[in-house]
């Protein structure tokens, strides 16, 4: 009950602060431009437009959704402490973990709404312009939206963990930007570099799989780019899709773990905080 009260307030606040509006418009705008501009290189003949959209949108999601998630979450705990609102909230009959989970549900709801609506617009626009959409593509699209929400949830949880650990908001923001750069950009580049240098001598397939699962964005990428046969053809990942032993359930579990583990650690850190 307490959790729902806090979640409702978070949502209310996000609507008031226009977070919901901003995130939805951003995602919708980019999804629409990708839908129409993105089909230019492939042409409109013989390919299923939605599959192309899935490839480009999921690449975009990897950059954008973690950023939005970290933006709304990095200040959730330390920010409320600095503003002094946490002091009053914790004097109420509510446990700290309830505060954290309530905020999480609220923020996740905001992300879910923005993603579903923002990306849904793209499908709607495709359908409206008369592109044929079959059930396979639609399923892959739904999986993309679902896993995008999971990815967002993972980064919201990571943001909370940072927020529960640091002393001030500036530090939280700095660390979150650093984490975003690391997980979204640097990690893959470094991994590629290492693989190229190693030439398959010491890094086995099992190690590579572990390395891919150790980054939520890679788990997300694999779900969407290799998980569905017709999509992976366009993604240029068909080769990898045939060789990788990381199945969808494994990848989903990894994403879920990336959400629950930081959340648990954040709850632990928060419960020990003094304010």
């Amino acid at each position, binding site marked *: 009950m307490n959790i729902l009260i806090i979640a409702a307030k978070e949502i209310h606040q996000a609507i008031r602060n226009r977070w919901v509006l901003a995130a939805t418009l951003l995602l919708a705008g980019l999804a629409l431009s990708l839908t129409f501009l993105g089909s230019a290189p492939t042409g409109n003949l013989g390919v299923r437009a939605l599959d192309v959209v899935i490839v480009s949108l999921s690449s975009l999601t990897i950059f954008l959704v973690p950023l939005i998630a970290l933006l709304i979450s990095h200040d959730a705990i330390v920010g409320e402490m600095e503003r002094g609102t946490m002091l009053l909230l914790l004097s109420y*009959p509510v446990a700290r973990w309830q505060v954290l989970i309530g905020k999480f549900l609220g923020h996740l709801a905001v992300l879910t709404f923005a993603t579903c609506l923002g990306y849904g617009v793209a499908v709607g626009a495709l359908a409206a312009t008369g592109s044929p959409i079959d059930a396979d593509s639609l399923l892959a699209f739904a999986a993309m939206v679902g896993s995008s929400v999971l990815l967002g949830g993972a980064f919201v949880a990571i943001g909370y963990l940072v927020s529960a650990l640091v002393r001030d908001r500036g530090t939280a923001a700095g660390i979150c930007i650093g984490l975003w750069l690391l997980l979204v950009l640097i990690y893959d580049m470094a991994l590629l570099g290492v693989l190229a240098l190693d030439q398959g001598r010491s890094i086995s397939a099992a190690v590579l799989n572990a390395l891919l699962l150790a980054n939520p964005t890679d788990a997300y990428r694999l779900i969407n780019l290799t998980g569905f046969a017709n999509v992976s053809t366009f993604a240029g990942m068909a080769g990898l899709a045939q060789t990788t032993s990381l199945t969808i359930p494994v990848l989903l579990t990894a994403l879920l773990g990336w959400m629950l583990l930081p959340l648990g650690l954040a709850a632990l850190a928060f419960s020990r905080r003094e304010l």
Partner: protein
Amino acid sequence: MTSTVRVSDVTKTYGRVEAVRGASFALGQGELVALIGHNGAGKTTLMKLMLGLIRPTSGAIEVLGDNPAAGEFAGRRQLGYLPENVSFDPALTGRETQAFYARLKREPVAKALELLDAVGLGAASRRRVSTYSKGMRQRLGLAQALLGAPRVLLLDEPTTGLDPELRQTFYDTITRLAAGGATVLLSSHALTELEERAGRVIIMNRGVKVADGSIDELRRLARLPTRIRLKVGGLAPSEMPPWAPQDTTCRRLNGHIVEIDAAPERKIELLHRATAAGNAVEDVDVVPPTLDELYAHFLRQSEQAP
């Protein structure tokens, strides 16, 4: 009398700073207790300890049957807290804020909103908190602290930013709550306001409790002189009346007032002497030591102690 808050030998250190050192006291039902001390004397720390916002370095605390340090919070439904410099989410309106806190305490929202009128927030309650002045935020802070029927009220500097009229209403409200059995612990710098209202005073200095008792008890302990001011006719400007005692300090204030610093037990005797003598005593004022003076006295005493 059952105690609602028990603090036993509590010490709280931040690094090398001892914010509270060996403090012990119990607060009973229906008590209106003033907690006074300088900034940094440990008042806010004590309240935070009672709320479990921080954990004591040593010692134990019990609030409404809960151990706040262990994260127990069942009793907090019957606890109201007003922090120093209270702040709210700027994006929500006063009504939304109050409704949110009412839900957390499982109190009917309609009744909670009536409190907003009681603290005089009225029409402003439909505006966003970001537009509020300090005084309006303080009113909202009071409204949320009074939610439900609190059995314990912890108020940290509650009257800062309140206008005199609301101050009066506020003191009436907490006096009524205390009469109904609530424990009110109130920290303030406005000592003159507390003097008439607090049934008990706890004085803190540098984290140590230096005095604890009713104002009368503190006056007895402090043995500060009571000032007797007599308006006497027919005296030359610097002349002392013949009945003025030799062993106590007497002075002449402006034209015709004689002021005597009387030890508490000599008040009556001195008055007798003054009225029995020939000079016409036209008026008399007896001023017992004020809370301000008591506070200064106990602070001095604790500074001199090793």
